[in-house]
């Protein structure tokens, strides 16, 4: 050891992931630690890359729907919805009111399922395992509804260009009401267990804080951005589908830290339950499908369609050359942008905070890598 090294310590470089229990999939973070302090966190992505966008170029519009389920697998209904909306806009197809209602219903149920999983993951990442199992118990109610209507629990393949795979089965609406009632009473329980727990608040308040300006510069969206005090919710900003007619609140929290992001999702659970109940109450009768040619060719042109997925602004950019396949297709995946400032969020915090930060951005690696 030479003279200059005396009294100094080395930095430790550790590989967090891709097989780490709390990187939410196959994220690898090259972590430089000084003791337990994070000096830098360098996310390395691409382990789940599956050429989603290139594949779209050799499948016709109908065939690609089942692929959209597979990148953000926790928000599959939303992915399908934004894709079919883009195609319908290109082709100039108008769907029936009942179809629109059911699509919105599915998207909100999917948001509930996704936020419940977030709650559980946040719990388990901060060491509270019981919340995780409670959330999964309630998520099961929603997955049962999905299974009943589409035959699938995760990758639904339910939406079609111009309609749906099938109408709601008999008794489904009553079951959905029952599920919402069960869920509404239990959301408070999660808050008691987790959101109001002193240890949890101490673990998340002021951790991974980011200002609204920076968040916008990084392209944050969804609950992460609303946690910074920006009331940006596409359901209100764009007012697509039936959202302008529905009564719900855009949940905004000041602070921009893990706790704010957490509280936004906690409140959105309640808002989504409200939306689902409203839609169920006004669900019109009628057909769900409009006639669409088996081989759908759209006029040349381009379209960018975006909706509010559970993770944020989910965009679908489609370019058509007039054939039955997209000429080019691009996903604006919210997780990708929400993961980008990881280093900025974690630097200077403890290693244990890394886990809370990753959990609070609620990334899905399939969505990041596509």
């Amino acid at each position, binding site marked *: 050891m030479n003279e200059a090294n005396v009294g100094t310590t080395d930095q430790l470089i*550790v590989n967090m992931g891709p097989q780490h*229990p709390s990187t939410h999939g196959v994220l690898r973070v090259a972590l430089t630690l000084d003791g337990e302090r994070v000096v830098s966190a360098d996310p390395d992505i691409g382990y789940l890359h599956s050429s989603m966008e290139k594949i779209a170029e050799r499948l016709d519009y109908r065939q690609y729907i089942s692929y959209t389920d597979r990148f953000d697998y926790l928000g599959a209904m939303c992915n399908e919805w934004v894709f079919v909306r883009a195609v319908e806009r290109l082709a100039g197809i108008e769907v029936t009111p009942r179809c629109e209602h059911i699509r919105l219903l599915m998207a909100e149920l999917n948001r509930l399922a996704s936020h419940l999983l977030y709650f559980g993951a946040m719990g388990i990442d901060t*060491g509270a395992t019981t919340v995780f199992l409670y959330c999964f118990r309630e998520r099961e109610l929603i997955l049962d509804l999905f299974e009943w209507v589409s035959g699938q629990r995760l990758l639904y393949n339910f939406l079609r260009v111009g309609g749906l795979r099938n109408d709601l089965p008999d008794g489904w609406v009553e079951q959905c009401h029952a599920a919402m009632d069960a869920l509404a009473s239990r959301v408070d329980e999660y808050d008691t267990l987790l959101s109001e727990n002193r240890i949890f608040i101490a673990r998340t308040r002021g951790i991974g804080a980011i200002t609204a300006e920076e968040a916008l510069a990084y392209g944050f969206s969804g609950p992460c951005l609303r946690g910074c005090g920006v009331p940006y919710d596409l359901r209100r900003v764009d007012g697509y589908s039936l959202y302008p007619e529905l009564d719900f609140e855009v949940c905004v929290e000041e602070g921009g830290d893990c706790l704010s992001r957490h509280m936004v999702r906690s409140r959105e659970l309640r808002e989504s339950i409200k939306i689902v109940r409203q839609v169920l109450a006004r669900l019109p009768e009628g057909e769900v499908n409009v006639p669409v040619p088996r081989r759908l060719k759209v006029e040349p042109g381009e379209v960018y369609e975006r909706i509010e997925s559970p993770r944020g602004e989910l965009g679908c950019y489609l370019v058509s050359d007039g054939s039955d396949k997209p000429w080019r297709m691009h996903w604006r995946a919210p997780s990708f942008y929400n993961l980008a400032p990881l280093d900025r969020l974690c630097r200077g915090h403890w290693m244990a905070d890394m886990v809370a930060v990753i959990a609070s951005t609620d990334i899905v690696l399939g969505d990041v890598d596509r």
Partner: protein
Amino acid sequence: MSIHTIGVIIKDWLIGLLAGWGVPVELSRLLIEVLTWAVGAALCIIAIMLAALVFIYLERKVSGYIQSRLGPTRCGPVGILQSFVDVIKLLLKEDIVPAEADRVLHTIGPILFLAVSALAYVVVPWDEGGTVAGKVDAGVGVLFMAAVGSMGLIGIVVGGWGSNNKWSLLGAIRGAAQMVSYEIPMLLALMCVVLQAETLSLAGIVEDQKGSIIAWNFLRPWMWLPVVLFLISGVAEINRTPFDIPEAESELVSGFHTEYTGMKFALFFLAEYGNLLLVALIFSVLFLGGWLSPFGYPDPLRLPGIIWLLAKSLLIVLIVMWVRWTLPRLRVDQLMGLAWKLMIPAGFVALGVMCAVIMLGWA
């Protein structure tokens, strides 16, 4: 008939037998002394093994109950054989030592951890006059337990360092910091009881609480602070949530035992549950009257003292499990802050109050 009298009867019978064979009385006494120690040591290990088997099953059932699921149900009636099956599985697993790991340290880590845990059992007063090594406890049971207890972290550090894994190392360092810190409030709480009983012998501390439940330490108002301090630091000493940062699964993969498989992993596991029982036992001895019956001394129900001791310990274990499955985990700096900024000052306050109580002659 207490354990003690059974022991005496067996000893007398053995001495008689050896005398009948023509062995000098002095030699046979020595032989029997050695034999007592060997049997005692074996009993300690068996106690840990049994505690671990029962507690692992219990933990899974309790957590299942808390989390509204069933827990193990497949092996035997209501899954009661699950722990045994797990042990057999662990025994049959390949023992993997990572490349570049320090083979020697990697092997002695878990052994040391278990050995230290077993050693502390030597001074537990199971029944009236019934420690495994009655004579060692003559005056220094508390001291012995504290000294041995603080050696536990050597096993963790050695295992974590020897694994040649950065996560293990981080876990080991965390473990060392945590166990050293929480030793202090634990000992301060212990000192209050020692002052109360005016003895360093654990058996003596139980004797001091002789009587029905109202004579026990936990009902004396000046003992309430030490009770809380001891329970919290006890949970921290055995690395359980909310203090499980040395093996924090979501942060450090598995902490210091990330690189362990098979029986070496099982040794860590056994020792952890052994420590859980130990803390519960010591807590019962210090504050809940050890082997005493809650209905007065001598016990009107004529139950062996060990039953009462185990019943009290089980209660403590259940509380610790309940806490584990409810609370999130503290962060490493919050954990250290809690120990140094809150619990150690509180420990000194408790000790001061205890001294005042003694000087005023209320004890």
